[in-house]
């Protein structure tokens, strides 16, 4: 039921994910941040086995920091994607990580880029992508509405439409989402879209009377 999605626009990349932490029929929390800020200009949205997800993303984050300490320059997004793929591939036939990753980053020379890395370490550079049951609804929506060089408003609007579709059409759909953006100014949280929980807007819970 976890959904992660990403879109590339003009000199920025957006990575969004749901924020539910679910075990069987119980929702543990509705504000679990699944899009990790790897370093100043990289975002890693991950979905899958909860323990593996946190463990793996933290492992990648720490190794990225180590590289930067050792070499005084940060790793590029493409190199990070290939490193991540390598770690997943090495573990695959021994002790696999059940984690799907959407990696978004901004480099001065390459601009914004987005990488799709699934749990069996298939790596592909993409403009738009999604994981999870939500992808069945989002991918075709993105195919229709995406165009290259979108502005931030257009890209976030596309993500909002995807979120709306997931909320409407997916059974046991996650209600809350986080949207993060990475551009030349860095990686940061852009918005939360909360329907339930402490931060949900009052309007969301209001009933409409005729």
């Amino acid at each position, binding site marked *: 039921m976890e959904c992660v999605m990403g879109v590339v626009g003009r000199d920025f990349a957006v990575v969004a994910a749901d924020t539910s932490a679910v075990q069987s029929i119980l929702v543990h929390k509705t504000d679990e941040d699944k899009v990790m800020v790897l370093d100043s200009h990289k975002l890693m949205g991950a979905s899958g086995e909860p323990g593996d997800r946190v463990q793996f993303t933290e492992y990648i984050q720490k190794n990225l920091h180590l590289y930067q300490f050792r070499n005084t320059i940060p790793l590029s997004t493409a190199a990070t994607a290939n490193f991540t*793929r390598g770690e997943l*591939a090495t573990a*695959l*036939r021994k002790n696999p990580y059940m984690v799907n990753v959407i990696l978004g980053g901004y480099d001065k020379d390459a601009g914004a880029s987005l990488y*799709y890395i*699934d749990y*069996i*370490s*298939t*790596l*592909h550079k*993409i403009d738009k*992508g999604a994981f999870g049951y939500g*992808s*069945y609804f989002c*991918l075709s929506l993105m195919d229709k509405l995406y165009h290259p060089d979108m502005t931030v408003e257009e890209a976030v609007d596309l993500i909002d439409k995807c979120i709306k579709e997931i909320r409407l059409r997916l059974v046991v759909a996650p209600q809350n989402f986080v949207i993060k953006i990475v551009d030349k100014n860095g990686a940061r949280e852009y918005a939360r879209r909360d329907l339930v929980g402490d931060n949900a807007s009052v309007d969301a819970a209001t009933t409409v009377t005729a």
Partner: protein
Amino acid sequence: MVGKNCFAIASDRRLGVQLQTIATDFQRVFKIHDKLYIGLSGLGTDAQTLYQRLVFRHKLYQLREERDMKPETFASLVSAILYEKRFGPYFCQPVIAGLGEDNKPFICTMDCIGAKELAKDFVVSGTASESLYGACESMYKPNMEPEELFETVSQALMSSVDRDCLSGWGGYVLIV
């Protein structure tokens, strides 16, 4: 497919997970050196891993021997690497195409554990392989020039993948 002092290697462009299409620009044919190409059908991740291992081995070979690998040698290398994993294989069926001595074309295919199949005319692999066999068999002529070879390969590829739901979304044809 083999032509007159040339060869063509082609693949479709779909990256999918069973029924869902993830991308329509996935690369499946890789260059080893100017006159040697390998196409890897099957599991995407194993195709990428296998390609990285083969490039590594070929670069080492180039450093030691100070020349490029012959296609026949490369095919034996791929076969050996695949058989090493006999009881935990790479889920890939390679298609190897290259120009050997005197630019004589060489093609071969293998199953996922390295059983080589040499051919003089064409080799195929992938989910649409049966379709491809039929299409290539009917369209193939010996000693085709590059332009005609390109047409033949393209038509064979397009008509075969159209009959397979897991293949398609474009084609990529390389003539050497």
